[in-house]
């Protein structure tokens, strides 16, 4: 194996990490604040992809403006879902899981009946390929990594530096205690859902432009998102970053060193090994 291939595979892994972190951030945020595993997070991601697609291809909007509007629109959809479907079952893991699985079917079939089943794609304005010493990466992937890092920093600052962010942190640590301190749990839950869905929408829109979109694209995203947050530690934002980096690098490097099937096995073996020694995940609490 040449050095070019090794560096190329590390770069591939970092690009995949950017996508996984974006997906996992929203999922872990909702989990930590609301205490539910939002199984329809993948479908929210898919709706984000389709809404940006229609704004760019149908309305002719600028790609970046479409990303912003998509973040806001899908974030509002998140508030609606929280109010109607999740608030009554907050903290009830099993019921919330059933509700969110039902939402997967509803949202998938809704989009399929509106947009049809054909896969689609659209070109983002970020084109071209960066080539250095035989290593290549598209600027589009580079932009996804950059967006992931920016959103991560913004979320981190929001949680650490604002009163609302601190309230989120308090709820994630002890919901009852936070309520006793006068924190409005309903409002913060709605905000968490807004941010979680908004982040998923941006991830979906970027991946939709990079690869392709279809009404069932969310299943793969959910699978990766759950693997990342389990590995990183349920509900932990730094954990989502570490988990995303590990799984992204495994996905990027091991298929080049062996076959994609063995690489898949290695990926899961690494997750299982880490969980044996740290059942709470890398950055999770006991």
């Amino acid at each position, binding site marked *: 194996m*040449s050095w070019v291939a090794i560096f190329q595979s590390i770069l*591939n892994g970092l690009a995949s990490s950017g996508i996984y972190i974006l997906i996992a951030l929203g999922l872990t945020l909702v989990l930590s604040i609301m205490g539910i595993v939002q199984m329809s997070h993948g479908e929210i991601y898919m709706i984000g992809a389709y809404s940006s697609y229609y704004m760019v291809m149908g309305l002719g909007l600028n790609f970046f403006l479409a990303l912003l509007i998509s973040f806001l629109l899908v974030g509002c959809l998140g508030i609606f879902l929280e109010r109607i479907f999740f608030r009554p079952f907050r903290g009830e893991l099993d019921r919330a899981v059933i509700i969110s699985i039902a939402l997967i079917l509803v949202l998938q079939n809704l989009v399929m009946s509106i947009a*049809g089943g054909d896969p689609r794609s659209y070109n983002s304005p970020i084109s071209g390929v960066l080539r250095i010493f035989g290593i*290549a*990466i598209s600027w589009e992937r580079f932009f996804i990594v950059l967006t992931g890092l920016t959103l991560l920093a913004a979320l981190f600052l929001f949680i650490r530096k604002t009163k609302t962010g601190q309230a989120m942190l308090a709820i994630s640590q002890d919901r009852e205690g936070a309520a006793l301190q006068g924190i409005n749990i309903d409002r913060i839950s709605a905000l968490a859902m807004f941010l979680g869905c908004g982040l998923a929408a941006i991830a979906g829109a970027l991946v939709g432009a990079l690869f392709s979109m*279809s009404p069932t694209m969310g299943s*793969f995203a959910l699978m990766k998102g759950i693997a990342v947050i389990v590995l990183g530690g349920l509900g932990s934002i730094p954990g989502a970053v570490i988990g995303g980096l590990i799984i992204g690098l495994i996905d990027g490097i091991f298929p080049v060193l062996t076959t994609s*099937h063995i690489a898949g096995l290695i990926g899961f073996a690494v997750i299982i090994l880490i969980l044996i020694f740290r059942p709470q995940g890398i950055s999770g609490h006991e």
Partner: protein
Amino acid sequence: MEKVRSLLNFCLILLASIFILLSSFFITPGAAAEDTFKVGMITSVTGPMAPAFKPMFDAAKPTAELLNQRGGVTVSGKKYNVEIITEDDQSSPPGAIAAANRLMQAGIKFIVAPMFMPSNMAIASVTEDAKILRMKAFGSGPEEVNPQMQFSFFSSSSLYNIEPCYDYLAKAYPNAKRIAIIMPDDPGASTHLTLNKKVIEKRGLNLVFQEAYRIPTEDFYPILTKALGKKPDAINCLTSIVPWSAGIINQSRELGFKGPIFCPGLFGDINLVNSMLKPDYANDIFHGGPDVLSKKMLPMVKDLRKLVEKTGSPFIMDSALPLDSVYLMVQAIEKAQSFDTDKVVKAIERMGNIDTIWGPGKWGGEEIFGNNHVIKRPFTFSQITNGKVEFEFIP
């Protein structure tokens, strides 16, 4: 007052019951059933395969309408209208078996087989014993059609596209000697792989890389990094669906590959693939499948396109698949002059020539499948050059 209201309600219910009873004497359920030839179609309307196969569901009614405009099916001088009854396999073999059972319970003896290969293989366990004739459009290998499956047929097989695709490669890219095969981890691809390897060896080409990617894959950078490290002149995708095809083409071009990328099976609908390619990358791409929007399409496909588009659904290659299958069933039934599937199978085995929606065909397949249950028809060849799809029939 309450008593009068109750009495009135009772009289209304009584009148309604008498009306229903009387009308049942005038409606002869047998008559409607006798005038209709019901064909079942199993396809994926929900689940992960639905995006690929839902267009078949959307095309069911227009297909029946077109066949009925052309006279339906005539047996013993009596005309029957075609009706296609669709069942969802939920993208899974157990779902397909349940769908096949529902169709069988409704008395249906002819089924347009599911395109999802594991589903079609699964339903064989129930349909073969019940003598249900299954016709699959764009079939692949002997896993689905073989002497053990007496009632299973293909309207064509992509295995017959391999040689013509390599003929074109040799003609258009004479310097392409090093071939990389990047294929899905799909049971349908195994026979393809064996036959492709034979052709590569026979033609003195060099297979420099071969690997299967997991389903579903979106990011092909890792497998392409490895493949391009072997410096291939051409990439063969064997068989694929639209998102994988677009992913492999776009991402291999990003990584600097400039040679031809081809698919002896199908890339999926070629216009959809083209719409998903970055403009600079839409070159040197070809496959053994039709461009159903081409002006060169035969009248039946053009007529079907009008009917499908009238419903508001887009017309893509998969929209033509129900017609591809049912049109053959209609001809076979008329040849047998019976709806008895034993007689229809015998008629097919005696038929020899048959008309297909892609041109004149001939039953064959013995050399690969062990029986003559597969149609050989004109090769449909499409390529993408400078962002445009070009199509031709090759006899």
